[in-house]
């Protein structure tokens, strides 16, 4: 596997690279310990692991919503860890983020929430006044159509179902014109049907638009089905990094520790799909 990455590097710089990233919260045990991996453009990566393994922390360190204690993260040739506030803001516009609880402004309409994704590109004043150009509005409508939310454009977000809200979340990330989308448990609060729709959309985003996608997942089956590559995290350390086909039952046991017995069933689903 390392060989493969080596080959990749010769062709182009990796889009994202983490070197020795470590994060300590107040406790003695690190939330992340010496995380190293690099991501090529257009990859679809799932991060799996038990609750509290540090998946969310890992994702948030990438766009510096959480500051890593030490280590280097570079994105698109820029060293993220050294950026000043204004440059960080500029960089964040190129990284979309999707959340388990959608994190939309409930009292605003779908289109208003989608257009929020453009705020990072605006001057403070234009953003405060909410002035969006006709092109931005058209782009928002295109993305909304693409995600099948055409009939909901002017609905308030608190009137939408969970699956629809998450699609608004995806639309808000897409309108940023991102190179990378980080998804923090995007389907953990959804029913299986909506979850499938969301995962399908994410795969399309990656396959058709060439946007790199990193997804934190609880469902091993979804990770196996959708990803190009799976990263297994346990107690803040990467314990597995490879293609879905390399993820054996023993590896899953290693990632999930004692929780793994129930997951064996899910592994069986791989062959059912």
């Amino acid at each position, binding site marked *: 596997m390392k060989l493969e990455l080596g080959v990749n590097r010769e062709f182009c710089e990796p889009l994202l690279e983490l070197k020795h990233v470590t994060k300590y919260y107040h406790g003695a045990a690190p939330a992340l310990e010496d995380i190293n991996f690099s991501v090529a453009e257009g990859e679809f990566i799932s991060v799996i692991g038990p609750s509290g393994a540090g998946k969310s922390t890992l994702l948030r360190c990438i*766009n510096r*919503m959480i500051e890593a204690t030490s280590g280097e993260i570079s994105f698109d040739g820029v060293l993220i860890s050294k950026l000043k506030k204004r440059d960080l*803001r*500029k*960089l*964040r*516009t190129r*990284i*979309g*983020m999707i*959340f388990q*609880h959608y*994190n*939309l*402004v*409930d*009292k*605003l309409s779908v289109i*208003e929430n989608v257009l*929020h*994704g453009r*705020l*990072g*590109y*605006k001057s*403070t004043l234009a*953003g*405060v*006044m*909410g002035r969006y150009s006709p092109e931005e509005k058209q782009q928002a409508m295109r993305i909304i159509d693409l995600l099948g939310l055409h009939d909901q454009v002017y609905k*308030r977000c608190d009137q939408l179902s969970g699956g629809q809200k998450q699609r608004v979340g995806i639309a*808000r*990330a897409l309108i*940023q014109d991102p190179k990378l989308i980080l998804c923090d448990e995007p389907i953990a609060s959804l029913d299986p049907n909506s979850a499938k729709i969301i995962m399908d959309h994410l795969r399309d985003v990656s396959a058709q638009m060439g946007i790199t996608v990193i997804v934190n997942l609880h469902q091993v089956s979804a990770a196996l089905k959708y990803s190009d590559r799976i990263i297994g995290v346990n107690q803040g350390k990467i314990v597995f990094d490879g293609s879905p086909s390399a993820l054996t039952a023993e590896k899953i046991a290693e990632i999930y520790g004692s929780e793994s017995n129930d997951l064996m069933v899910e592994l069986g689903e791989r062959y059912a799909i």
Partner: protein
Amino acid sequence: MKKIEEAIIPSKPLTRESFTMWILLLVLSLLTIYALATIDYTSVDMGKAMADTLNNFKTIFFHPAAHRLSLWDAFYEVLITMGLAFLTTLFGGIIAMLLGLLAAQNLAPKQVTNIIKGFVAFIRAVPSILWVLIFAVAAGLGSVAAVIGLTFHSVSYLTKAYSESFEELDRSVIEALMASGANWWQIIFQAVIPSSVSSLLSWTFMRFEINFANAVAMGAAAGAAGIGFDLFMDSGFYFDLREIGLVTYFIIAFALVLETISTNLKSKILLKKA
């Protein structure tokens, strides 16, 4: 079925807390009875005093009349009082908006919110009339002291109300917008204020009504002009019960009109948002 009938409902156990509570209530009721029984009325005959008071009320409320003030004068004076209420709510609202943003836990660092919330709680703990009298030391008794004092108290009241309205928007939504590169002011105006606009409005109207009542009192207590001053003159200098009745009715009428307008405005804005 039988089992259910046989089941014993356990009586509430007598804990130390409830025991203390019962003792406290008992002592307080005994003290009340003792005080009422031994109160010194001196020369006041309770029955006669009650009757006289009711008689005064009858004059005030059933025979209102204008002597000193013409109807137009009374109306104009109420407008002045209204102006006092409007001005203090406007100043208070603008300042409180800024302080409210800094006092909301989802928008500002914890130390800042704690300092502002503590400061504002201190101002609120002192009654507004007292603030007016404190500012009267510098500004002299009159409308200036009343405006400053009432504004001061409005700021503290509205800061608390506004900051709690802002806190309705979840921290995670703000995090999501930060992650997309939006800055603080953009998030405030595009997410926080739109989410809380209806509660901001209802708190502001609420304070306007409170300030109207306060402005009447300020007219009397701090010589801040307006209808309150006339009320004070009628009661304290002219002993003109009938005119007191008239003024009271004017104030009630205006309060009702205010209430109606604010209710209508609120429902209109809420409908538009929905």
